[in-house]
């Protein structure tokens, strides 16, 4: 993320990206540096809803001191390319929490890229990512977890689920574990699926029209991601933006 040369798809962390779009804004700004002191609890929210055609790359470099916590909530829905990366280093007993949703349509490329380094023992990290992709959109999650030799009792988890609304959409999920300690717990799960036809019929049998049924099931798919946001107004802003984006995917026409 500190590379000066224009990225290419040969580089692992840009493999699924829209490098042609990146060229128009290269070089990007230096990462936002966030330092969480020992025992501190810091939360950040990012609603990436840039205008159509915009090219957005946002990088965060986060260091969390002993016993500290950093929580990030991300809704990544705007622009031609929307790429958000977190490079997080955890101290002893620190915690990193990421809840992210990607909702894309058209030819959007939306990405969440994380590198989480458990540098010291007893740190924990939890990443939950949900993607909803329509049309020719591409949604990617690349999540690397590095556990240093001395970082015993690390507990790192990734849960990644993607929902494809059209067969032409693409979801990439790539967990990568690099573990040098022996007493650690690293869990990762990734699924890619479509709306459940049984659930859609169940909704219809109760009187929900197809558009309402799809909206309900898609809302349910990302439900809970933003529940623990401390600022209620901010949470409502996220939920409203997610709902508006789902409506804008104009699902009725495509999926009817």
């Amino acid at each position, binding site marked *: 993320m500190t590379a000066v040369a224009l990225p290419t798809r040969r580089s692992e962390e840009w493999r699924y990206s829209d490098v042609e779009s990146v060229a128009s804004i290269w070089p990007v700004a230096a990462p936002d540096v966030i330092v969480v002191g020992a025992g501190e609890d810091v939360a950040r929210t990012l609603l990436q809803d840039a205008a159509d055609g915009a090219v957005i790359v946002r990088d965060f470099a986060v260091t969390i001191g002993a016993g500290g916590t950093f929580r990030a909530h991300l809704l990544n829905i705007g622009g031609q390319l929307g790429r958000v990366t977190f490079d997080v280093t955890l101290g002893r007993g620190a915690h990193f929490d990421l809840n992210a949703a990607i909702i894309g349509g058209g030819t959007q490329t939306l990405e969440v890229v994380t590198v989480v380094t458990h540098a010291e023992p007893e740190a924990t990290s939890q990443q939950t990512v949900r993607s909803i992709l329509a049309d020719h959109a591409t949604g990617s999650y690349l999540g690397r977890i590095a556990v240093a030799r001395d970082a015993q009792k690390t507990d790192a988890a990734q849960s990644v689920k993607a929902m494809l609304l059209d067969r032409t959409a693409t979801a990439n999920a790539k967990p990568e574990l690099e573990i040098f300690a022996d007493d650690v717990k690293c869990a990762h799960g990734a699924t890619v699926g479509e709306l*459940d*036809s*049984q*659930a859609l*019929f*169940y*909704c*219809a*049998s*109760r*009187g*929900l*029209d*197809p558009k*309402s*049924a799809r909206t*309900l*099931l898609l*809302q*349910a*798919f990302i*439900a*809970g991601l933003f529940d623990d946001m401390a600022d209620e107004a901010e949470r409502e802003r996220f939920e409203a933006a997610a709902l508006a984006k789902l409506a804008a995917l104009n699902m009725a026409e495509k999926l009817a």
Partner: protein
Amino acid sequence: MLHITDLQSTVADKPILKGLSLSINAGEIHAIMGPNGAGKSTLAYTLGGRPNYDVTGGSVDFDGQDLFDLAPHERAAAGLFLGFQYPVEIPGVSNLQFLREALNSQRKSRGEEPLSGGAFIKLAKEKAGLLGMDMEMLKRPVNVGFSGGEKKRAEMVQMGILDPKLAILDETDSGLDIDALRIVGAGINTIMRAPDKAVLLITHYQRLLDYVKPDFVHVLAGGRIVKSGGPELALELEREGYAEIVA
């Protein structure tokens, strides 16, 4: 209310219903019994409009309308309720949200005003009470973490809230213990025993019929109704088995 004439349907292109005829009038409760593979669930799903259950012949008139002119959600709005043998789990959507949206979607397509939040909660509380469920359970996601018996009771709460004209209940008694069977049976009677309503019970066993007394019993085998009679037919089936009757 429901007139099925020479209905033929396929499931994934395999013929299952092969000329089924049946008439159900308002105020009546009918039971359909039959061996495994007879086409009982196929009948329910075909009437409900489930994808991959294709009508290949015959007709169904529901309250003066051609049922197959209606999409599944329109059939519900017209007053058809399908009780599922295996109710579907919907994580992330509470029973209350699900039912309120379903009810208001039905009301909208009938040209009625949506029910207010307060009025809906009152209705939900009343119907849940009939089935011995509390509101806490209705705040939980649809069918998620419910036992088999709780799912069937939840189906009946849904039926109570949606207030259909015709309920087609597909093995609503399966997975119920004796106590739950009694509660569900009483619920069906309270909600659906009325001069302007009708029920089609699909079941393997006589035991539900001890609680919900049918006016007519039909035996379905090989995709057709092979025998019809009064409640005594169910007892005969229980005693003799299907093989005797179907042969």
